[in-house]
């Protein structure tokens, strides 16, 4: 398959825990894949393996037929650029302005001197601005990233991912630290990129509803293994109970739980 991301028998061991355990997956181009699972199931680890922020203990990952796990130096950095990563905590540089943060997505193309001097070409700047524009952030372009709200910061992170001109977009719980309104903006942004640009998107999610609403395909992990792999429709209540286990489920007072907040005009 062209431009398919394949994991075969990938494992990653931390001390005694097998964080990711013999995972085999094929992800076709253009899919919007959601990964769900309990805390500690290995979702983050899997994404980090793909981006090569950590190395697998065994197994192989390949993209478009070429092996990823053995990349080094410049070609490793090129791969990281090709599969952009978005983090739960945004991982922006608070003290740099939004524009520079987005331009960090271009660093892989830069040599030593130009990057040390923080010099970017006008074409790159334009590209960064266009990306920001898609996410409605041009007015904030010169503000320091640390002064933005969480939702804005996450959108900056997406813009940064966009200027990497990636082939795959990985997102590790991108909305976990956002309020519902911002979460919607961010998920919509990802969906838009997926449909408009045809980018493959692989996103870890904590909230089932969100996964159901956005994803073409849902993968559930449990204790490092892939436990379910199918469409939202196939994800029945029984399956969910298996994924999350039943212990600790609490029945909430409905009145309180519905945090459909009264809209707070900003």
């Amino acid at each position, binding site marked *: 398959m062209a431009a398919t991301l394949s994991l075969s028998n990938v494992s990653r061991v931390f001390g005694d825990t097998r964080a990711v355990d013999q995972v085999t997956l094929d992800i076709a181009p253009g899919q919007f894949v959601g990964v769900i699972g309990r805390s500690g199931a290995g979702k983050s680890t899997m994404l980090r393996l793909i981006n090569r922020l950590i190395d697998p203990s065994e197994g192989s990952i390949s993209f478009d037929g070429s092996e990823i796990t053995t990349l080094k130096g410049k070609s490793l950095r090129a791969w990281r650029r090709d599969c952009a990563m978005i983090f739960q905590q945004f991982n922006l540089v608070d003290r740099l302005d939004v*524009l520079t943060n987005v331009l960090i997505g271009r660093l892989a*193309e830069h040599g030593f001197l130009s990057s040390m001097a923080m010099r970017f*070409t006008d*074409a*790159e700047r*334009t*590209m960064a*601005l*266009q*990306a920001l*524009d*898609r996410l409605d952030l*041009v*007015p904030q*372009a*010169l503000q320091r990233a640390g002064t933005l709200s969480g939702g804005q910061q996450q959108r900056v992170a997406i813009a940064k991912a966009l200027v990497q*001109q990636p082939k795959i977009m990985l997102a590790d719980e991108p909305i976990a630290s956002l309020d519902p309104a911002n979460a919607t903006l961010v998920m919509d942004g990802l969906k838009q990129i997926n449909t408009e*640009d045809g980018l493959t998107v692989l996103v870890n999610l904590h909230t089932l509803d969100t996964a159901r609403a956005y994803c073409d395909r849902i993968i559930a992990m449990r204790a490092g293994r892939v436990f379910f792999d199918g469409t939202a429709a196939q994800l029945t209540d029984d399956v969910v109970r298996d994924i999350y286990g039943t212990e600790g489920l609490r029945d909430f007072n409905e009145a309180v739980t519905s945090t459909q907040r009264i809209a707070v005009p900003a």
Partner: protein
Amino acid sequence: MTATADFNDISPDDSVSALSKFEADFAEQRRRSRLAWAIGTVLFILAFAFTSWIGDFFKVTQVTMPDGSREWRWIIPAGIPRLGEYIEKTIPTLRWDTLGADFANWFWRWKIWMELLFETILIAFMATVFGVIGGFLLSFPASRNLSPNAWVLWITRRYLEIARTVPELVWALIFVFCFSVGPMAGVLAIGLHAAGALGKLYSEVNENIDMRPLEGVKAAGGTWFDQIRYGAVPQVLPNIISYTLLRFEINVRASSIIGYVGAGGLGQEFRTAMSFQEYTDLSALFVIIFVTVMIIDYGSEKLRHRIIHLEENRP
């Protein structure tokens, strides 16, 4: 590189205003940052030029060469080969076959030095105690967010500033006159300076605390003192302990030099050794102080980590 196809299809119509506004902002920001940079550079160069002129940094003068001839030279390169001279004098001759005797000869005054070292540490201890008491008590009225009123804030701040602005050595000179030679003058001098320095550090910590617990205490009917005791002190305590341990280390160094003007401790020995040209004594004293400071450094770091660790692992 082109600004690529991926983005070309985005119609810019609706964002023209935002983009052009950005262009204007960006140009403005660039202009301003260039200006600020230029001004900053000019000021820095001026300051550098002025101070290096005053400080003889680029002085060219007649120096005596090793062979006794006289040449006009820029003194820095001329002097660099001679940097080792003084150090060389302080290095004792240690031969392998007479190592024991050589060592004994090097540390010939070790009994007195140990006594003085002990005195030095005690001076540092006392000075730290006084400094912490003074600094701690005054740091609360000296914090903008905690001070009961503007007057108290102003007075305590000025007091702390004066206490720390005047160098320890000057306090020592003054106190040696007032309390005569001996460790007491050293304790007072270092203590006073430490109170000033710690008071400032502590009050900075205080200014960064979370005010909500204080409000919680206030809302329950607590006085100002209650708010400080229950709301502020627990928050700042770990920082205070770690600053205090750091200060103790600084005070050990300070009290090893303050004896130079007669305020007790090892500094006295330093001075005598210098004036009697007992060069190897200097290196021996250096070794003693270095080892002591290392041990204290290490110990206080362990202690600090333990405190932080205890903090984290409290049941």
